[in-house]
């Protein structure tokens, strides 16, 4: 925890989730779980965001939206897939309008399983994401 020096901003997108994970993501931001204590702020603007929290699996219609959001985020960026649907499609895997996990469309750095994912594991996933973000930032510095 002591090595967290930056305040990463997160953005949440609901791909085709059932709301279960979405409300748990929101619950994380409210006082009881409070990820804001790590300096994290929820933003709606992809250009402000460092971490993309994505819930639900992708389908043909929203895969473009997901791609665009991801491309608009500045480097370095981290994608956290929340819930089993975002990881691999979950209970809806066999549905005709579900392509599968988010990693079919964009690279995913942290997978948070669960149906719905518990706030504790979401917070854990975000903190793991902070580690990945740091590594990516350092890799970028070396390159430059």
């Amino acid at each position: 925890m002591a090595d967290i020096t930056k305040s990463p901003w997160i953005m949440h997108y609901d791909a085709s989730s059932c709301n279960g994970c979405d409300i748990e993501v929101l619950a994380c931001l409210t006082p009881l779980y409070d990820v804001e204590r790590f300096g994290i702020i929820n933003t709606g603007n992809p250009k402000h965001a460092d971490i993309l929290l994505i819930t639900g699996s992708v389908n043909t219609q929203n895969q473009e939206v997901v791609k665009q959001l991801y491309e608009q985020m500045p480097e370095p960026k981290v994608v956290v897939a929340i819930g089993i649907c975002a990881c691999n499609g979950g209970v809806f895997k066999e549905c005709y309008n579900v392509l599968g996990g988010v990693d079919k469309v964009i690279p995913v750095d942290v997978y948070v399983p669960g149906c719905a994912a518990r706030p504790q594991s979401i917070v854990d996933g975000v903190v793991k994401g902070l580690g990945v973000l740091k590594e990516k930032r350092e890799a970028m510095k070396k390159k430059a």
Partner: protein
Amino acid sequence: MGNRSVIPFGPQHPVLPEPIHLDLVIEDEKVVQAIPNIGFIHRGLEKLVQKRDFTDYGYVVERICGICSYIHGMSYYEVIEHIMGIEIPERAKYLRTIWSEMSRVHSHLLWLGLLADGFGFEALFYQCWRLREKVLDMFEASTGGRVVFSVNTIGGVLKDMDSSMLKSFVDIFQDMDKEIHKCCDIFLKDYTVETRLKDVGILTKENAVLLGAVGPTMRGSGIAVDTRKKYSYAAYDKLDFEPCVAYEGDSFARCLVRIEELYQSIDLIRQAVDKIPAGDIITPYKGKPNGEFMFRAEQPRGEAIYYGKANGTNHLERFRIRTPTFANITPMLNILAGAQLADVPILVLTIDPCISCTER
């Protein structure tokens, strides 16, 4: 005649966590017409009924939506029980009622929070969600799950609550009642809130019927219809309550109905705990369903319709869910026409949209 232009609203936007896209045709600042554009979270789970056994499909139905999950699951099993002619034990009926009402409390608190966030009152949003966490803790204590808790099954429920747990829940709700009063007084009396909600987005009584509104959206327009009252499923026929109504039809009326329903739900839980009989919680069953049934339940967002058709095999032929938001979309379009562009987020929120439910 001002300049006409079309503004796309959504799918990714700050007011709702869920994706919905509206094409707003506006004239200067005034919305002339709104055209919905859905399908971002359509999964097609009604089709899954042909791939899953009727005993397993309930788990899929529960995952239509994470907010209304409990009542969706319960209604699926009610349909199967009606088709198969299974009479569930009295105690199970009461337990279903208690969990249903707890779901309503959590859903309405969630909505109040989102509404507060919608008009920029962040502290109130956090207070509502803080209260909501207490309900989720009770869910966790009684079922093991916070959001989706597959506690129903064909013939009854899987988990029982002992009397000390039930009593402790009533005590927690008693304390919450005071805190909810404090929060809701702000919604009902605060000047800022009033200016955002009063006389905004009026849905007349005639339009509410014609456009097929359901739930608090309908009751906010002066129609005292509550599915729990009319088709008393679970143990609602043994409890004493009247539908909550408001007559103005504006955003404030819809907010008022939901606040009153919060108190009503707490009262219903108290009544159910007083009356709950001892006994079994599950009736064993044999065979496979054959026949059809249509079931109506009152979700936090309004009346939901569940239609099941079985043919005596392991798979149902059809299971159809008409969710309350699907019915409330047309009234929402009516409310939006004529509104100011800046009011659109609040107006969309006042029907308590649940897009996951709508698109399934």
